[in-house]
């Protein structure tokens, strides 16, 4: 068994530097790598490019990095929950590349699985396809989208083991599996870090081969963006 555990978030993020490109898992605030983001804020590195479906909210998630003006460019599908984001974007401080959500997921998966590019129908005929190669297959038009290239992937799982194997909970899975192994270094933080052999090999969502470093996360806030309930009848 190849051991991937590191003692803490500081060791897990060794090597991150200004100007790098990061992938960050999560959908909204669900399943985001809270510990890695907090450490990136602490490290104060600048000019980061972030590939993340969303940009957090003003005071949590990637919003924390936006507040500190650490992000140069965001690559996302939806950024509608963040006033500071909107301000920086409209003022031109922040570069933004909006990408269809399925395309974003697949550009990560392509990087993970060694595909240089893929054809998707999403965005054909829209400004998303401007300047991109398009092509017809069986009478339908597709856009050629290249795989992402990133320096680090930061993902968050529910359970993990020393071998780097990961299991996610509910919809906190989202982009996290697609981003594992899609960057030069994949750093996984988990709610529960277990010895090798604790997880059923049948139930593993991401095999450890896609993960370079894994650590036990702490102080998960797991904030809910839209608490929605129904009344008891």
């Amino acid at each position: 068994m190849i051991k991937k555990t590191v003692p803490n978030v500081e060791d897990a993020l060794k090597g991150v530097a200004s100007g790098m490109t990061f992938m960050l898992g999560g959908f909204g605030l669900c399943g985001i790598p809270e510990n890695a983001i907090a450490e990136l804020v602490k490290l104060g590195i600048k000019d980061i490019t972030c590939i993340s479906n969303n940009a957090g909210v003003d005071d949590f998630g990637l919003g924390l990095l936006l507040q500190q003006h650490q992000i140069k460019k965001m690559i996302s599908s939806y950024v509608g929950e963040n006033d500071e984001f909107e301000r920086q974007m409209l003022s031109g401080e922040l570069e933004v590349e909006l990408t269809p959500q399925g395309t974003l997921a697949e550009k990560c998966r392509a990087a993970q699985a060694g595909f240089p590019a893929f054809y998707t129908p999403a965005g054909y005929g829209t400004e998303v396809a401007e300047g991109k190669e398009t092509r017809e297959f069986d009478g339908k038009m597709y856009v050629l989208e290249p795989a992402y290239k990133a320096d680090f992937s930061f993902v968050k799982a529910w359970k993990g083991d020393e071998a780097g194997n990961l299991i996610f909970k509910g919809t906190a899975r989202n982009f996290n599996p697609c981003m594992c192994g899609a960057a030069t270094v994949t750093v996984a933080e988990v709610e529960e870090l277990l010895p090798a052999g604790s997880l059923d090999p049948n139930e593993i969502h991401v095999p450890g081969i896609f993960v370079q470093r894994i650590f036990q996360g702490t102080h998960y806030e797991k904030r809910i963006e839209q608490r929605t309930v129904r009344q008891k009848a």
Partner: protein
Amino acid sequence: MLDKNGIAKRIAKEVKDGYYVNLGIGIPTLVANFVREDISVEFQSENGVLGMGPFPFEGEEDADIINAGKQTITTLPGASFFDSAMSFGMIRGKHVDLTILGAMEVAENGDIANWKIPGKMVKGMGGAMDLVASAENIIVAMMHTNKAGQSKLLKKCSLPLTGVGCVKKIVTNLAVMEVTSDGFKLLERAPGVSVETIVAATEGKLVVEGEVPEMAS
């Protein structure tokens, strides 16, 4: 004239037994409340869940179980969770039978715009571009006119497109329309709404053939 619940209720009639359905944010989300109870339907949310149930009871919310609108949800027996790549595999691979979403503008050829107002608002397309580029069956739920009273059913969209020639049906507060090669074909009038009112509120070509029935309630 229909309110938002009325639009959702009318669209719910388009949901057939055995359908997997993706509901967008806003009016589409309300559709789930009106689907007949004697048919089997499963709701997919593109953030990675199939078999969504109602919102949780107070105190039972789970931060790890949300829908694409970031709302806390529950799941029903037979539900499953999966990653974003597989979720859009379901969508792109045409396994989802019906997509219901909102729009800022729809053109008479089926083009849709719903993600960007240049210089004013850029929230992003989320999963909408994947959904409209893939689904065979796309219904738009929206008000017939915008807040300034201008028609949202146009000859040509003025805003950046989300997808081209993809919308099949539109249900608004005034009418039910089908997108045909001749333009918007008026199928039903909302209760108490005249054909003239609908014609006046529609900038794009509206095809009115024979007697247009009032929507059954």
